[in-house]
C-alpha cells in the first residue's frame, strides 16, 4: 500500500532537447515562409533604388574596351542604358535602329554606356539580329536569366536607365517610339 502511494503516476513533459529542436524547426519554417512572401511581394525594381552589381559576359565582337565581360559597377560615373532584347522578339526590332543611333550619338562623349542583354536566345540568331540592325554597343547573353530575374522583367524589350550613382532612374517597358524619346531621357539624366 505504501509503495503504491509513493509511486503515484505522473505525466512527464517533452524533454528539453526535443522542445528546442521543435521550436528551432518551426522558427526556421516561419523564416522561410516570410522570405518567400517578401520575395513574392517585391515587384520590378523601382526607380530610386540602387541597382546591385552584376556581370554580363559579352559576345565575341561586342566586347567593351577589349573586355569579354563587364560589371555594372565598372560604369559608376556614367549613365547606363540596359536594354533587354531577343532575336525572336518582333517589337525589339522596332527600336533596334533607334537604340543604335542613340549609342552613336552618345558614345563619343564617354558619359553614357549602352548594354544589350540578350534574353533567352540562341547565339547564332542573336548575331544575325545584331548584324541586321548594325548594332555595335556591348551585347551579351543573360546566362541562366540571372540579370532578367534580378530586374524581374515582364518581357522584351525593356530598357533600364541607371544614373551616374548607380540608381535606377527610369524604366521603359516595350519599345521606344522614336530616337527623340531615348535622347530626352538620357539628356535629362546628364543634366541632373
Amino acid at each position, binding site marked *: *500500500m*505504501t509503495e503504491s*502511494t*509513493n*509511486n*503515484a*503516476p*505522473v*505525466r*512527464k*513533459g*517533452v*524533454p528539453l532537447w*526535443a522542445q528546442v*529542436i*521543435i521550436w528551432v*524547426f518551426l522558427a526556421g519554417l516561419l523564416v522561410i515562409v516570410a522570405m518567400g512572401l517578401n520575395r513574392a511581394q517585391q515587384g520590378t525594381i523601382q526607380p530610386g533604388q540602387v541597382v546591385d552589381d552584376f556581370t554580363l559576359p559579352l559576345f565575341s565582337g561586342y566586347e567593351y574596351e577589349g573586355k569579354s565581360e563587364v560589371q555594372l559597377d565598372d560604369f559608376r560615373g556614367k549613365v547606363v542604358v540596359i536594354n533587354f532584347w*531577343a*532575336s*525572336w522578339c518582333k517589337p525589339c526590332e522596332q527600336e533596334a535602329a533607334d537604340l543604335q543611333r542613340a549609342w552613336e550619338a552618345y558614345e563619343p562623349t564617354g558619359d553614357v554606356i549602352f548594354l544589350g542583354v540578350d534574353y*533567352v*536566345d*540562341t547565339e547564332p*540568331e542573336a548575331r544575325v539580329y545584331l548584324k541586321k540592325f548594325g548594332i555595335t554597343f556591348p551585347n551579351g*547573353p543573360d*546566362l*541562366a*536569366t*540571372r540579370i532578367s*530575374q534580378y530586374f524581374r522583367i515582364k518581357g522584351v524589350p525593356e530598357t533600364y536607365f541607371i544614373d551616374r550613382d548607380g540608381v535606377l532612374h527610369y524604366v521603359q517597358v516595350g519599345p521606344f517610339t522614336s530616337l527623340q524619346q531615348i535622347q530626352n531621357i538620357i539628356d535629362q539624366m546628364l543634366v541632373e
Partner: protein
Amino acid sequence: MLFALVVSLLFATTVFAQDDLPTDDEVNKIAKQLYCPVCESTPLDVCPTEACRQWRDTIRQLLSEGKSEDEIKKYFETNYGARALDEPPNRLITYGVPVAAFLLGAFLLFRGFKMWLKPVAVEPASPTEEAEVVPQDDYIRRMEEELKKRK
C-alpha cells in the same frame, strides 16, 4: 580495283553521315523535357513560338555534334537557368529534404507524445517530500488497524 573499292567506301561513309542527322523524334525526346521561360508550362516539343523553334534547332545541332542527352540538358541549364528543365537539377535535395523533414517531425511528435503520456514513477526527491508521505502512511496504518478492530 582496290583503289576504286576504297573510294566507293569513302563515298558510302559520307552518305551514311548524311543519314545520321538527328531525327525530329530524337530532338523531341529531349525537347519534351525542356521548358522555354517565355512560354511557361509549355514543353519545348509542342511549343509553337519562334524562341522554341530556335531551341529545338540548338538541340538538333548539339545532337549532331555528338552531345549526350545529359550534356544537352546541362547546356540549357547553364544558358537559360534551372527553370528550363522539367525537373529540378538537384533531385536529392528537392525531394529528399521535405521527406526527411516530415519523417523527423513525425518521429519527434511520436516520441514527444509517447513520453508525455507515459506514466512514470516518481521517487521522493528530497527529505521534505518523504516527510510529507509519512503522515499519510501513518493514517493508512491507523485506518488498517481500525478496520481490523471492527472485524
